[in-house]
Structures are given as C-alpha cells and as structure tokens.
C-alpha cells in the first residue's frame, strides 16, 4: 500500500533538508504532505506536546487534517490523544466501531467521510513528545510493513526537532519545542491578520505566506512575523 517511489522522494528531500539551518514549521508541514502521499491517507495532522504535557496543533496536510486535530483537542478525545498518552500506535481503527471509545470524535470523523484512523507517537527515549495522525477511507488499511514506515515518518519528525540545533542535553529539546510552539502561534496570528486584510480565509492566507517563504527562501515564521509587523505599522 505504501508507495516505494514516493518514499524514495521523501527520504531524498528529508536528507536535503536536515543538513542545514532549516525551517522547522515548513518541514513538519511537508512531512504531513508526504505522509498523506505515501500512505494514501486523505488527511494527516501532527501535534506536539508543551511543558504541561498537553498536545498542541503543529502541522497538517490540509484543512481537514487541521480541523480534526483541533477537534480532538477541543473534545479531549481521539486517536492522537490516546496514542500520545499510551506511547503506542493506534492502527487501523474502524471509526464505526469506535463510537464508545470516542463519542464525539468518531461520529464527526465519519460524518466527514472517513472510515479509518491511525495515530503514531513521536517517541524520544521513554517519552512521547507528540503524535502523527492519519485519516483515511476504508481501503487505507495498514499492513505491518506500512506501520513501520509511518512510524519511521513520526520518528523523522522527532529527529527534525532534535536536529535543528545540536541536542547535547535534555534542556535542549524543551528549547526546541518551545521555539516551535511559539512559531506556530506567530503563524496563526499572521494568518488571521492577513486573512482580515486580504478578505480571504486563514487557510488561503497560510498558503500565501508559505509560497512567499518558498520563493524568497525564508523561514515561514519570519515571513509571518514580517506580515504582522507590516500590518501593525500600517495600522
């Protein structure tokens, strides 16, 4: 089920990205895109834990993925949260039979056209620092080798966090997480502000900033901060 060709592209891109000073937020977004492409999932989302041990939204392959990450946070239930607290993957869960387990999440996901859901922990030693969530139709059924590949993608996300600066000590991971989580807030603030100015949706505003970052080879968070500065100055 996993496409080997796409997987090759992915690893080449990951290797290219992780060697230099890279854009962590954009990287995690791309990783969710890749996870969707290789697995055939309709939507993929990624969440990271803060220092309270609570998950926060970090990246998604599309708006649906984002919506269902937020939905899980809002209702304090769902595969990502289970996977994070048990540190074990949640694989091939049939949503129709999961309404007891997730009374809010399962019906909402079914209503959105999904049949199965998977979640993979981002593990570091004995800890979970986040989780990767995949939503799909019935034909997206993972075999053992698929599970290993998608878990490897979750592990790459962890490595990316550790990689951005050399992680010699335990404090450094917290430093990275804090930086990433705050970057996410900057980006959300800029999405809202830009959407308001341009009369567009936050999702479109996000794509606008993303393509600006790409074309000018700057980090997404820097483009977002500049957008906010310009709007503040114009105000």
């Amino acid at each position, binding site marked *: 089920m996993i496409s080997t060709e796409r997987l090759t592209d992915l690893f080449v891109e990951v290797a290219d990205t992780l060697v230099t000073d890279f854009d962590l937020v954009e990287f995690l977004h791309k990783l969710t895109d890749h996870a969707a492409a290789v697995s055939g999932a309709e939507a993929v989302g990624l969440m990271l834990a803060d220092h309270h041990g609570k998950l926060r939204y970090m990246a998604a392959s599309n708006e649906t993925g984002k919506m269902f990450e937020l939905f899980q946070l809002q209702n304090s239930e769902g595969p990502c949260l289970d996977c994070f607290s048990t540190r074990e993957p949640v694989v091939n869960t049939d949503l129709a039979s999961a309404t007891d387990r997730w009374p809010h999440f399962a019906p909402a996901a079914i209503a959105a056209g999904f049949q199965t859901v998977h979640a993979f922990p981002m593990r570091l030693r004995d800890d979970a620092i986040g989780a990767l969530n995949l939503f799909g139709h019935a034909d997206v059924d993972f075999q053992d080798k698929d599970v290993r590949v998608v878990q490897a993608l979750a592990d790459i996300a962890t490595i990316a966090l550790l990689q951005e600066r050399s992680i010699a000590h335990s404090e450094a991971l917290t*430093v990275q997480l804090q930086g990433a989580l705050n970057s996410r807030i900057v980006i959300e603030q800029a999405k809202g502000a830009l959407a308001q100015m341009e009369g567009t949706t936050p999702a479109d505003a996000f794509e606008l900033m993303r393509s600006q970052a790409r074309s000018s080879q700057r980090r997404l968070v820097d483009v977002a901060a500049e957008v906010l500065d310009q709007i503040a100055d114009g105000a």
Partner: protein
Amino acid sequence: MCPQEQQGVRDWAVSMVHQQPSSDGRGVADQLHRLCCAVAVGLHLKGTAVTVKSFDGSEAVAAASDATSRRLAELEFSVGEGPSHDAFLQGRPVIVSELRGLKGGGWPGYTSASQAEGLSAVFAFPLQLGASRFGVLSLFADAPRRLDRDEMARCLAMSELATEMLLDSSASSPDGEIDPDLKSALSFRSEIYQAQGMVMAALGIALPEALSRMRAHAFVAGRHLIDVSADIVEGRLQLTQDGQDP
C-alpha cells in the same frame, strides 16, 4: 511525567508566588517581584530578574529577587549582549549551564563581566505570546547548573505566569491585578491566535490589546474565549472599535 504532575506545574507556580511576601500588594511590579522570589526559592537559585524589552531597543529591569540579580540583568544593557538578549531575539529559551570555558558564545563582554559578579550559570526564558514579546525571565546560579525536565517545566510555567502578568498590565484595566486562582487565560489554541490576528488587523490595534479585547468580550458575554475566537474566525462575530460589541 504523568498527566497529574503536568497539570500541577501551573498550580505549583501560582502557589509559590502566593507564598512570597508582598511589598505593597498591588501592581504588576509587585507581582513580578514575588514571582522572581518564587523562582529563586523554588528552584534553589542565586537569584532571578524579569527584564521588559521592546523591539525598538528600550529595556528595563521590571523586577528582581535581589540587588545582585538586578545588577546582572542590567549588565546586559551596558554590554549590549548576553543570554536574555538572545532569548528575546530568538524567541526561545537560552540555557548556559556553565559560563566558564564557554566557547564561541558570542558574548565576550557579558561572559567576563558576569563572572566577575560571581555568576556561573544562567538561563533566560522569553516572555512571549507568538509575535508579542514582552521581555525575559532570567535565572542566575553561582555554581554550574543543569535543569532537568521537571525544572524546565517549572521555569516555563513561571514564564507563562509572568507573561500573563505583563499581558494583563498592558490591558486597559487600571487595576492590573490578576486573579491568581483563575485558570490560565492562555489555552494555546490555534483559533485564539487567528482571531487575535484578525481583531488586530480589523481594529488597527496591537496584538496584546486585541487579545485583551477578546477576553473582555468573552467575560462580559459569559462565554469561553475559545468559542468567541471561533466566532470571530468564522465571521459570526466582529468586535467593534468602541468596545460596544454586538
């Protein structure tokens, strides 16, 4: 860490601040002073300070646990470099477990001057909410020091509390007193920050003011901030210039 412990980090921070004596019992400066003392006591440090900065370069020590810490924080202004400077610019904590022998730190002036004051380790936590940056909480130790995961979590909980104090003091309320029993005003949800950006752009106000307007609206309407934020993002609610929101 089990969930109970994690939930407890904020409670720990609030209760530690409460236990510290108050000088006059009012105002953000007094709150920050108590917070500085709480961090120093709670994490067995030499001292702590909160520096308030703005991007235009103005900076001031808003509170310190003791005179030496105030001097150490002020030292960064005079040499124009150091960990709190970097933490503010980079938007993430800066950890220096041992100043002695620090290689390529990029702070030659700060390193020698602070060591002359007896400093051995320093930790700087930015006080920020996305693009709104208020200042830095600096922790000073007189011996080389590591922070374990729980200690890092405690420092971050204290930083969050200090951020809320500064956020509330920047709001229009002249009282500026936060209710320490209140659940955290900051629930770190994407919708809140998108709405904050929208209100900022729509009303032509600063980000912190946009958030305090949203919180005020939620309070008056007896609703949760997250629901008010969702309404703003979905276009169901527009906050108005005069504060008389429909």
